[in-house]
Every structure is written in C-alpha cells, then in structure tokens.
C-alpha cells in the first residue's frame, strides 16, 4: 500500500505537477481500451486500482521511482497509450502507475544509417508525421498508431499491423532499448537481447528509450479488391503475403455491412482485400503485375479508393461502434493457409450475434484477426454471455495452430496452452529479473486466477448469466481484501 511518505518521495522525484492521487485520476488510470468490462468483474479479479500516478520525463526519474518501489515492495504498472483491451495496464495490486507518455521526444534521426532514437512514450503517428519531413518512414506500426506508443507496441510484442508483412514485427525493427530494471538499474540492450524485453508487457523492465530502424520514403501503391467467394479471397491473401506487401488486410462481409450502416460506402462482398506496396518504380511495376494476376477473380477498385481506405486505417476499426454502442473484441493470430476454415468456424461460433472481422497484417504466413462483436453493456446478461466467447476463440486459434494475440490480464490463463514447459522458463526469467515481483504483477506468466476458475466462470456466463450477475452483484459487498486472500489460497497470483 502506498503511504504518505511514498507520495512525498515520489513528488521529490518527478515534481508536484507530474504526480496525482486525485480519485478521478486514479480511476482513469485503472481502465484501458476494454472499457465495457463490468466494474464488478474487475473486482472479481481482486483489482485494487492505481494508488498514485506519476508522469516521468527522464530515464533517471523512472530509475529513481523503481529503485524506491523495489526497496519498499510497491507494485508498478507501466502505461503507454492504453489502447489495448487485454487489461495489460490495469494496476491489479495497487501501487504506482507510471504513465510514459511524457517521454515523447525524438532524440536522434540518423537518415544515413537508417535509425531513430526516441522516448518510449512518443505515439507512432507523431513519429511517422515527424519522419516525413526527413523523407523517412517507420516499418511495423500498430493499427492504433494515433495513441499507441513506441514503447507500448514493443512491450506488447508488436506482431501485427501495417509494415509487418514487409519489415517483420516490431522486434525486428529494434536496434537497441534503454531499459530500467526493477531494481532501478539502467541497461542499454543490443539488437539480440532487446528481444527479451519485446513482448514482455512491462514485467521484465521498463523501456524508456528505443532505437528503431527507419526506411527511406518510397513510392506507394494501393489496391482494393472485392471477392464474392471466400475461397478465392483467402487464397489471394495467402499468395499476396508472399510478395512482402507493406500492407495486407481484409474486411469481411459483416464488417463491410456494419460500416455501411454507420454511413460509409463499401460494397458488401465476402471479402474486401487491401494491399499496399512500396518500393522503386521497377519494384512496384513487377509487383503490380503479380497482384493483378493473384487477384484476377476479384473486383478491382480505383487506386484513390484503395489509398483512401489505407489512409483511414487507424480509424476504420471503430467506425461502427456507435451501432453497439459496446464492442467486444477478440484477436487471434492464425496461419493464412487455414484462414477459410477459421472464418467458417467463427461464423459458427458467433451465430445469432452482430459481428464483423478486420485483419491486421502479420508475418511468417500468418494473419491477425480482429473479431468485433457488437453489444450493449447495459443489457448486462446478454453482454456477459458475449464475454464467455473468449474461451471459444482461444480454442479455435489453437485448433488451427494459432494463438490468442496478446496476453495481458485476460489471456494469461492461456499461457500454459501456448508455451507448455516454456512457461516455466519464462517465469524463472521474470523472477530472476524482478525478485520482488513488483513489475506488472498478476499478468502474462503469472495468471491472476487459476485457469480452472476462469473457465468455470466463463461457462457459467454462457449458461447461467443471471447467476453470474448475482455473484457479481454480491461481490460489491465483499471486501476486496477478502477476495484477494481467497484467490491467494487457491493459487492465484496476488501480490
């Protein structure tokens, strides 16, 4: 628990203008993109929420905060743009939330050697906009680039988005990271040990600066094809991925229909496949021929339409949310060769619901699907049933050699299924770097609640949602401390 003395010390470190213990502020820092999750469900996880929020501006400040937290056993939750829905930035055990967004400067732009050195809290869009003046562009970047930070994308693995099919995941772009370890020690990584921290979701250290590759701005060409047949569309996507496109994604019929209901103007076909390529004039010409051949069965759209869709890529995923108004999103990564089967299975799983799928380009012959299910959190029982679908998605991904995309809080129960014995190694690494277990406790390698309870609860949500609602309502009257004690007894990771 954070006490007055802790606040005084933290104030000395960051200054009084960059620290807050105001109730409404702490509430905001105890939520993320998954804002439709019932409060009671977060309580059921035994979440304490933020006790103090700090906005450091330098690596030294982060180091001083961690050194103090380590000595005093105070939990730390690091936050970037908060644009993920998996609960990765929820302060489960209270303590300090470190908002990295003040560390947002571009320190070096080296055009000759093709890299930039940036504060981890800069948003991808800000970086991309600034690089344009140097004639440069980034490689992989997330679909939420307007708010997602460079550090946040690195910490969450950055395995899908624009640029990934051509340049690889964000880990492939990282040349070096400045990381503050839980003890407060500052280290500078090389490209190889940077991988240790990529995708570690704030559990191994805090990335404060990143040196990432950048590339010369080249000519771009964009394509948009509509396919009437799912088979032809998915087959085209598989072949297109071999061309190393800069952008490769699709929208399914459900998604296109919802966009139109929200006032957009798309054709409603089985799949709308979007491809973007960059390169020299010769490279573009060569790829143009191949794309035309691969997509021969599709209905091509004028380039300005394709470019417009590309430029709208950061917004389109949420454009129809008003129809819900709540949105339950599930993301899975699956091999492209199974895409048709996966889409068929999803249709079966979501029968009777309103949903659409957009995809994010990924690497190694895979694709990430963002399945967006519309609902209304105010219709509580119905919405609880929708929540129960997450278990089905994890199973579906596994069936086709895929995985859930991202771990955070909500997918931590899937870690054993994904990594098997590798999970034990990951736990050992985590505890060797963070002996006090202060960094983002209750996430990733250390699931909050044992899987059996989670799956049982999800089964109940699906079959007897009214009972779950009753349990959640009852929880209001149970002290969080008692819940946490109970979870600790049954093997939950409670700090």
């Amino acid at each position, binding site marked *: 628990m954070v006490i007055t003395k802790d606040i005084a010390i933290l104030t000395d470190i960051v200054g009084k203008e960059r620290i807050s213990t105001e109730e409404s502020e702490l509430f905001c820092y105890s939520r993320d993109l998954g804002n439709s999750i019932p409060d009671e469900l977060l309580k059921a996880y035994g979440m304490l929420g933020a006790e103090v929020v700090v906005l450091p501006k330098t690596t030294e400040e982060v180091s001083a905060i961690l050194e103090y937290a380590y000595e005093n056993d105070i939990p730390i939750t690091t936050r970037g*743009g908060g644009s993920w829905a998996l609960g990765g930035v929820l302060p489960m055990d209270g303590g300090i939330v470190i908002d990295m967004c003040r560390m947002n400067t571009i320190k070096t732009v080296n055009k000759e050697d093709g890299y930039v050195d940036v504060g981890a809290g800069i948003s991808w869009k800000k970086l991309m906009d600034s690089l344009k003046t140097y004639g440069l562009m980034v490689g992989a970047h997330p679909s939420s680039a307007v708010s997602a930070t460079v550090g946040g994308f690195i910490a969450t693995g950055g395995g899908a988005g624009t640029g990934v099919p051509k340049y690889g995941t964000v880990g492939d772009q990282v040349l070096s990271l400045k990381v503050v370890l839980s003890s407060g020690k500052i280290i500078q990584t090389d490209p190889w040990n940077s991988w240790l921290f990529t995708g570690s979701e704030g559990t191994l250290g805090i990335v404060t600066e990143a040196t990432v590759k950048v590339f010369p701005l080249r000519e771009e060409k964009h394509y948009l094809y509509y396919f009437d047949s799912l088979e032809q569309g998915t087959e085209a996507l598989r072949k297109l991925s071999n061309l190393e496109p800069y952008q490769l994604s699709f929208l399914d019929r459900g998604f296109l229909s919802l966009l139109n209901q929200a006032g957009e103007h798309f054709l409603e076909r089985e799949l709308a496949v979007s491809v973007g390529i960059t390169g020299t004039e010769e490279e573009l010409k060569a790829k143009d021929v191949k794309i035309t051949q691969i997509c021969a069965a599709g209905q091509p759209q004028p380039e300005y339409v394709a470019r417009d869709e590309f430029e709208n890529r950061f917004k389109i995923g949420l454009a129809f949310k008003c129809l819900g108004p709540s949105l339950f999103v599930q993301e899975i990564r699956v091999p492209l060769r199974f895409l048709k089967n996966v889409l068929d299975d999803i249709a079966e799983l979501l029968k009777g619901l309103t949903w659409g799928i957009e995809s994010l380009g990924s690497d190694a012959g895979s694709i990430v699907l963002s399945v967006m299910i519309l609902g209304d959190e105010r219709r509580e029982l119905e919405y609880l049933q929708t929540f129960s679908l997450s278990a089905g998605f994890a199973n579906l991904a596994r069936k086709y050699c895929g995985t859930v995309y991202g771990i955070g809080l909500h997918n931590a129960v899937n870690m054993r299924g994904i990594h098997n014995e590798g999970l034990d190694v990951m736990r050992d690494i985590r505890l060797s770097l963070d002996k006090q277990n202060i960094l983002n406790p209750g996430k990733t390698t250390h699931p909050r609640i044992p899987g059996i309870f989670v799956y049982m609860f999800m089964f109940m949500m699906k079959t007897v949602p009214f009972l779950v609602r009753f349990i959640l309502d009852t929880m209001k009257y149970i002290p969080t401390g008692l819940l946490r004690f109970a979870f600790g007894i049954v093997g939950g990771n409670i700090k």
Partner: protein
Amino acid sequence: MTEQEIIEQVYTCASCGYCRFGCPVYNEIGFESLTVRGRMQILKKILEGKMELTKPIIESIYMCAQCENCNIRCPTGVDFVKISEALRETLLKNRLAPEVQLMLTENLARDSNPFREPLEERGAWLPSDYPQCKKSENLYYVGCTGSYSLNRIPKSIMRILDNIGFEYTLLGSEERCCGSPILRAGDRETATKTIERNVEKFKSLGVKTIITSCAGCHKTFLHDYPSEFNFVHYTQLFTKLINEGVLVFEKELNEKVIYFDGCDLGRHSGIYEEPREILRAIPGVELIEFQYNREEAECCGGPILGANAELARKIAATRVQEAIDRGATFLVTACPTCLLNFKEGARTAGIQLQIQDLPLLLPKYVKVMKKVQTAGAVKDE
C-alpha cells in the same frame, strides 16, 4: 445535445485515446482525466451512480478549450464539445459551476462582454461624430475584443474599407456580445436573448451581410444565428478584393511568416486558405507551416484563459516555440484571442518572436488600386 444523446455518446466512446493526440490541455498537463477518454469514463461512472461529482471533476469540465481537435481524431464520432456545452449548462443551472464561472456569466449577462468593461463604453473607441447604426446592407460587426481591448484591429480594417469606398455601417455603442463566450460558459438562456436582440437589430437596419474580424464572432454567427444573413470574414472579403485587383501589396515583408490556424476561424468555420492567400500576396513573404495545420491545427489555449490563464499561456508558449523551431521569424494569426494569448504566452516564457494579427499588418503593406462600385462586392457568387 439531449441527455439521451449524451448517454449514448458516453457508451460509444471506445477509450482508444485518439482524442489525446492534438488536445492542447492534455499535451501540456499529461493526465488522463483531462482527455475526452478520461472525461467520458468519469461521466459514465457518474451516470451509473458509481462516482460522486467532485470539485476537481467540475473544474476539469472547464479545462477544455472546446477546440474540437478531438472531434477530428475520434473514430467513433463522439462530439465532446457539444457534451461539454450541455454539461456546463447543467452545472450553471444548478449553481454547481466554479465560482469564477458563475461570476463570469453574471458579468456577461450584465456587461455583454467578457472583459467586465462597462456596456456604455462599447463604442467609446469611435470618434464621437462617427455615424453609427445607419441603414445599410453591410454591417461590420466589431466584437468585444475589437471594441474594448484591441481597437487597432477594427481601425485597420475600417481604413481599408473606407479607402476602397466600401459602403457599410457599424453598431458602435449599440453593439452587444455575439453570444460566443456566453454559450461557452453554458448560459444558453442569456445567449438566446442576446442572439434574438442582435438579430432584431440587424433586421432593423436592413442588414444582409455581416462582416466580422473576430473569429469567435464569425463561428457563432455561422452556427448559432439564422442563415438568412450572409456572414463574411474579412479574410474572405480581402481575398476577393485582392483577386479583383482592388487591393495590391507593394511594400515588401521579408520574413519567414508562419500562419496559425485559430480554431474558430479554421476548424469551426472552415476558413483555411484565404488568410494564406492574403499573406502570399505580400511581396517577400516566405510562408511556412506548423507541423499540424489547417484542420489538424493545435489550439493556442486562448479559450481557457478564463478558467486557467497560466495553463493557457503555457500552451501558447509551446506553439510560439514550435513556430521558432520551424524557422519562422514572424507569427501571424487571424484571431484576436490567439494574438493576445500568444503575446502573453511568449512574454511569460521569455520567448522572442514577432507576433501579429493579420489585419494589423495590412494597412502598412496594402495599396488601394481602385474603388469598389457596389456593396454587392462581398456577396457570395
């Protein structure tokens, strides 16, 4: 915005945080509760009865510049500015608004200007024998800032209008606030009365076209007044006069000029190119741009001068510093509020840069080539 519409928008907000990107207040302070995302999450809990409406929450509602930068970034169509207007209205009705806001609304209702200046002195800047409130199809509406604190702006514009023989009238001491600050404070009742009174006055003089030099007035006329009038900003009129060869710039201004798109003239009124065309017409001007300009331009902080002057100045200083970093030697805006805030912000932060409002530049450089024939010169074609 109705209560039900607000509720729907609260649940529509995705908490994606895109609203933070160009938010002047968030970017200066850095805390989530000052973003639209944070405000909507808090509002949701208040509506659900899970959070108390505390003093810091109330104060934060007035810490929004209503610049609408969040609106252009929002992927879900949430319009927080409309919501904040409705919230301020409710807070005011229930006397829950901060003391300073309550005082401001009382002063606005009494004095019809945000500067606490006496109503009877509104026309004091004009020569006593200047003909006011004569019948005319064209009205030059000066606005509160021009009438009280920056008389040089209307005087510059009038010098050009008079030189070209343009026929128009002024309301002088009969002019009242357009309603903009009253609406922003949430006092819809007084604003409605003010608008009705102004419309009646315009009609009584046979006015068809209203020319403005205050961006805030222009925005309010466009959005809150009956569309039976033709609202023209002076930048639109002067651009037309330049294109027709009536106005020509002879003297050189050898400066790297950066034009700042104030929110009321830019995003709220859609006027982006006319001020730039005027500046380009001045020989020697090298026009450069802010990183985020036109629709994406980031607010100067001026609208929160009343709620938090220190913060407003800090935001202004950040913009002035960006202008310098981009190589500008001269910062030009076309909004008196931006001008005042930039000058104060730069002075407080100790930043040196020439800052000027566009109309104050013009008389020095412009030469009248011919007289206009009719009042119809300002009408839309």
